[in-house]
């Protein structure tokens, strides 16, 4: 493996071509980033695509499935809906079904967006108990602001790559480094 030959293209580049190589790399990253941020705006969710990390929703969703979410205020959440939520203070999104909905009309505040006053209880289809054990200490219910979105569509298996990259970080760095090196060192034809 002649590593010095990888740099042949770069050695023969002038300043502008070198700058374009860097820009090219930047544009690939920017395209992915802009698609992601664009999806955030369009779906209203801070995490428009999530990977199912556990088997708690089998047989509906399996570990490794990719879910597409929307988080529109105008769509009310009902009992039976599958929601993705984050427990306050923890990063990991959880995909479970709404079991109970607790509403007290006197709690409702007209100036707030709809449903902010509601309280939800969730449970994974494949779990024995409801999610109270997963919520923050002393928390008995979820609020609308904890919900990241509702599942609108899904792709099976595709998320396995994300799970692999999280379980084996070295694989993730190797993959990203290889892609980066390939883009930076390869000169496209004019």
């Amino acid at each position, binding site marked *: 493996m002649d590593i010095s030959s990888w740099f042949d293209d770069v050695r023969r580049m002038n300043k502008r071509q070198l*700058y374009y190589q860097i820009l090219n790399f*930047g544009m690939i990253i*920017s395209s992915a980033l*802009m698609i992601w941020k664009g999806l955030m705006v369009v779906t209203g969710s*801070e995490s428009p695509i999530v990977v199912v990390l556990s088997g708690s929703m089998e047989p509906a969703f399996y570990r490794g499935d990719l879910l597409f979410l929307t988080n529109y205020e105008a769509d009310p959440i009902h009992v039976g809906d599958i929601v993705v939520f984050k427990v306050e203070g923890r990063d990991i999104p959880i995909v479970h079904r709404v079991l109970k909905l607790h509403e007290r009309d006197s709690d409702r505040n007209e100036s707030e967006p709809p449903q902010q006053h509601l309280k939800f209880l969730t449970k994974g289809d494949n779990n024995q108990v409801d999610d109270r054990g997963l919520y923050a200490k002393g928390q008995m219910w979820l609020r609308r602001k904890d919900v990241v979105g509702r599942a609108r569509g899904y792709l099976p298996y595709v998320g396995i790559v994300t799970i692999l990259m999280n379980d084996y970080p070295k694989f993730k760095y190797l993959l990203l480094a290889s892609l980066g090196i390939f883009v930076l060192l390869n000169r496209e034809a004019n």
Partner: protein
Amino acid sequence: NRSSDLVKVDKWDGAKVKNALDDAAKKVLKEMGYVETHGVTDTRLAICTVACLLSVLALVYDFFLPFPKSKYILAFCSVGYFFLMSILTLYTMFKEKNYIYWGKQNATGKDSTPKFWALRSTLRRFEHDYSLTIELRRGKSGRTFEAEVTKSVGSWLDEDGILHEDVFRRCVKELHSQVTKKAKDD
């Protein structure tokens, strides 16, 4: 040719072969004293830079003022980015095309108009015929004269992928003479 100066490429890699031939052709024009002009290339680089800056803006803004507060800036950056990408595509498709060089020959004593030179080249994927076209324009709004050569890359590259620059340069210089003659005879 000192052996360290020899240009060696993977003869089966079309992109690298084209780059090597293009670079050698540009070298010939450079040695004739023409000055390469970078206006078109710089415009492309500027479009790409602004696009990347938009995405950096989105990243930084969202980091300090998380979604949903950053919604409008994110929307602006996203739409702006893809708009610039379309502009970039149009620009490379209709303005840059297959040009590899733009240059200017300053006016010499007896000839008062500056001359503008350009090179265009094509090497299709998985094909071995390389086309090189040289353009000459007298003054900013004069007529454009062209001369073209299409030959297999095997005419200049040997079995080991070494580019025989002396043979290629003769080819380019021949093109240069052809187009200069066409312009003079006009």
